[in-house]
C-alpha cells in the first residue's frame, strides 16, 4: 500500500515511538511569539537547561503589538513587558528575533513563508493554532501549547500521537467572486467546527492545484477551525517558484538537492485515507458566518437557519445562544444589513494578493460614510510591497485606515477592538464571542466580500458589485 504525503513526512521525523504511547517527533523549525513563549523560557531556565537548538527557532512580535506608531514605546505596560521579555529572552538564548522595527517583522504565519523559512517536507510548530498555515507548502505544521514550546526548547522534539488522515478533494472552476477564503468557509460550514477533530487534512484536486501559494495558505490556515490538527497541500511548481530566491531559500547546488527531495512529496496513488470528502468547486458561493463559531456559515444570500428546525438539543441551544449574542434572528437574511466595521487583516488574509484583490475592487470608489475600515498588512514586507504598487494610495483615497503589521483586531489583544454590539465584517478566522473585543459581533468573510461591504456599508453579494464594474 502506498503512503500519504502526511505519512511520508511523519515517518521521516520519528526519532522514536514509545510503546503504547506517542512518538518523539523531531521538529525542523520552531516559530515563537511574545504571548505563548515567556512561560516556556522560564521553564527551561528553572530546570537550568540551555536551548537545545536555538538556530532552529525564529521569533517575532505580533499578537500584542500596536499597529500605529510602532516606532514609539508601547503604551500598554503589560504589553510592553511581554514584548520586552521576548527581546531579552531571545538575546539571552541566541534566538533570531524579527521584532518591532525590523523590516522582517510581521504575523508569524505570514513571515515564515515570506522569508522562505517554510519549506516542503519540514515539521514546523509554533505556540499558535494557525501554524497549520505553513502546511500549504507540504509540511506537517501544527499549533502547540506552551509546555510543548518548552519541550522543543529543551529537545527540539515534541511528543505526538499520530493523527488520522483525511483528504478533501476540490475539483472544477470557481464562480466569479469566489476566492479561497470562501472554499474553506464552505468546507467548515459543511463538516462543522469539530468535523475534522483527530485528523490531519490534505487538500487536493484541480481547484487546489490552480490556486496561488497565498490562496493555499488561506485554506490551510483555517484547518484548525474544523478541529483538524493541521492541513497540507502537496508541493508543486507553484510552490517551488514561490520559494525560489527568498531570504532563507536554498541556493545553488543546495537548491537542486532540495528540489529533488521535494518532488517526492505527494500522496501515492494507492494511498488510503481514513476519511475522504469530495467537493465541486462550482457549488461554492461567496460565504459569510452568522454565528459564534466558524462552522456557523452560509452562502451570502442564504437565510440564517431557524433554531426550531434543529433536532439535537445541544446544537439548538448553541445556535440560540449564538444568535442572541449576534443580535440576529433565524430565518432572516444578512444581505443588506448595515455593518459598522470592516477589518482586513490577520494571518488568514493579510498578504499582498489579498491587498491586491481588495484594491482592485475598491479602486476609484469610496468607503461608505457609516463604516470604519481598518486594513492591517500581515508584515512589514507586505506593507512595503503595497506601497511600491501604489495600493496604499488606493486605500487612502477610499478612506480606509492603513495600519502597521500585527495581529490587530483578529484577537483584540491590543487597542484595535470592535466596540460591544457593533458588527464587523472580518477577513480573520474566528468569530467567537468577544474575539474582536468584548461584545463585538464578527461576520467572517473573504477579502472581496469585506471590501464590498466597505463600499456599500451593508452586507453585500460581491458578485453584484463585480457585475457593475
Amino acid at each position, binding site marked *: 500500500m502506498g503512503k500519504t504525503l502526511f505519512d511520508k513526512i511523519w515517518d521521516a521525523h520519528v526519532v522514536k515511538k514509545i510503546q503504547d504511547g506517542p512518538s518523539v517527533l523531531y521538529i525542523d523549525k520552531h516559530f515563537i511569539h511574545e504571548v505563548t513563549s515567556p512561560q516556556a523560557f522560564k521553564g527551561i531556565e528553572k530546570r537550568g537547561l540551555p536551548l537545545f537548538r536555538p538556530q532552529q527557532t525564529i521569533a517575532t512580535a505580533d499578537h500584542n503589538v500596536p499597529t500605529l506608531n510602532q516606532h514609539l514605546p508601547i503604551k500598554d505596560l503589560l504589553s510592553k513587558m511581554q514584548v520586552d521579555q521576548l527581546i531579552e529572552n531571545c538575546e539571552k538564548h541566541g534566538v533570531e528575533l524579527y521584532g518591532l522595527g525590523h523590516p522582517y517583522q510581521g504575523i508569524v504565519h505570514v513571515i515564515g513563508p515570506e522569508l522562505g523559512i517554510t519549506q516542503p517536507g519540514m515539521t514546523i510548530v509554533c505556540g499558535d*493554532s494557525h501554524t497549520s498555515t505553513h502546511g500549504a507548502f507540504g509540511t506537517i505544521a501544527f499549533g502547540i501549547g506552551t509546555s510543548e514550546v518548552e519541550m522543543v526548547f*529543551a529537545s527540539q522534539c515534541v511528543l505526538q500521537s499520530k493523527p488520522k488522515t483525511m483528504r478533501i478533494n476540490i475539483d472544477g472552476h470557481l464562480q466569479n467572486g469566489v476566492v479561497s477564503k470562501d472554499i474553506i468557509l464552505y468546507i467548515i460550514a459543511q463538516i462543522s467546527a469539530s468535523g475534522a477533530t483527530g485528523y490531519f487534512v490534505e487538500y487536493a484536486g484541480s481547484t487546489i492545484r490552480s490556486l496561488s501559494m497565498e490562496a493555499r495558505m488561506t485554506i490551510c490556515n483555517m484547518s484548525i477551525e474544523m478541529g483538524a490538527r493541521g492541513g497540507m497541500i502537496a508541493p508543486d511548481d507553484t510552490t517551488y517558484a514561490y520559494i525560489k530566491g527568498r531570504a532563507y531559500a536554498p541556493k545553488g547546488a543546495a537548491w537542486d538537492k532540495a528540489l529533488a527531495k521535494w518532488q517526492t512529496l505527494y500522496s501515492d496513488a494507492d494511498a488510503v485515507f481514513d476519511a475522504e470528502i469530495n467537493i465541486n468547486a462550482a457549488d461554492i458561493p461567496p460565504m459569510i458566518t452568522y454565528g459564534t463559531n466558524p462552522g456557523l456559515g452560509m452562502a451570502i444570500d442564504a437565510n440564517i437557519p431557524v433554531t426550531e428546525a434543529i433536532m439535537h438539543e445541544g446544537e439548538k441551544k448553541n445556535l440560540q445562544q449564538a444568535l442572541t449574542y449576534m443580535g440576529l434572528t433565524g430565518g432572516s437574511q444578512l444581505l443588506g444589513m448595515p455593518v459598522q466595521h470592516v477589518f482586513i487583516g490577520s494571518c488568514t488574509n493579510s498578504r499582498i494578493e489579498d491587498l491586491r484583490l481588495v484594491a482592485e475592487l475598491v479602486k476609484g470608489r469610496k468607503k461608505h460614510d457609516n463604516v470604519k475600515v481598518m486594513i492591517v498588512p500581515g508584515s512589514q514586507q507586505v506593507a512595503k510591497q503595497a506601497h511600491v504598487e501604489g495600493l496604499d494610495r488606493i486605500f487612502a483615497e477610499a478612506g480606509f485606515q492603513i495600519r502597521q503589521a500585527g495581529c490587530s483586531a483578529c484577537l483584540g489583544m491590543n487597542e484595535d477592538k470592535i466596540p460591544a454590539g457593533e458588527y464587523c465584517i472580518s477577513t480573520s478566522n474566528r468569530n467567537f464571542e*468577544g474575539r474582536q473585543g468584548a461584545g463585538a459581533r464578527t461576520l467572517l468573510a473573504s477579502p472581496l466580500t469585506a471590501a464590498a461591504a466597505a463600499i456599500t456599508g451593508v452586507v453585500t453579494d460581491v458578485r453584484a458589485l463585480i457585475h457593475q464594474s
Partner: protein
Amino acid sequence: MQALQILNSTFVPLPIENVDTDQIIPARFLKATTRDGFGKNLFRDWRYADDDVAKPKPDFVLNQSQYAGDILVAGKNFGCGSSREHAAWALLDYGFKAVISSFFADIFKNNALNNGVLPVTVSDQFLQAIFALNVTDTLTINVAEQTITIDATGLQENFELNPYKKTCLLNGYDDIDFLISQKAAIEQYELENG
C-alpha cells in the same frame, strides 16, 4: 506536575457546546509572563457584566455557590479554538482537576494533560445523565482503572487514556523530563538526517 489517581467530588455543570478558548480565558488576559493567577479570569465574560468584577452575572454557574467541586462538566467540543495553554492554566488555577465532556478539541486535550488536568471523554448519554443529577451528587474518576462513576446510581463508563499519559498522570511525571532523557537518540537522529 501534580499526580492524579482518584478524584471524588461534586461537579460544576456547564451544558454549553463548543466552549472555545476565548471564552475560557479572553485574549486580553494573556499578557502575563507567568503561569499563575489566570483562575480569577476564567470564563471572565460569562462571569461578569461590563467586564466588572463587582458585577457577577447571577445566572452563570461559577457565580452560583450551590455548585462547587474539582470537576467541570461541559457540552461537546470543549476547548476548541486557540492553542493557548492559558486555558488549561486558568482551569487549574481556579481549582479544576478534571473536565468531562463528550468531545474535546485536540490541542486543548494535550495542554490539559500536560498540566495534570484530566480531560474525560464520555458518551453523550452519560453526559446527559450527569447533567440530570442533583447539585450534591458526586462523581468518582479512577485514573488507574480509567473509569468514571456516578456515585448515586453506580452508573459507570470507561474512558480512553493513552498508557503513556496515564503513567505520567499517576506519577506526576512530565514530558520534558522524558524528552531530555532521550537526548542521545535525538542527536543520533540529527546525525543521520542532517
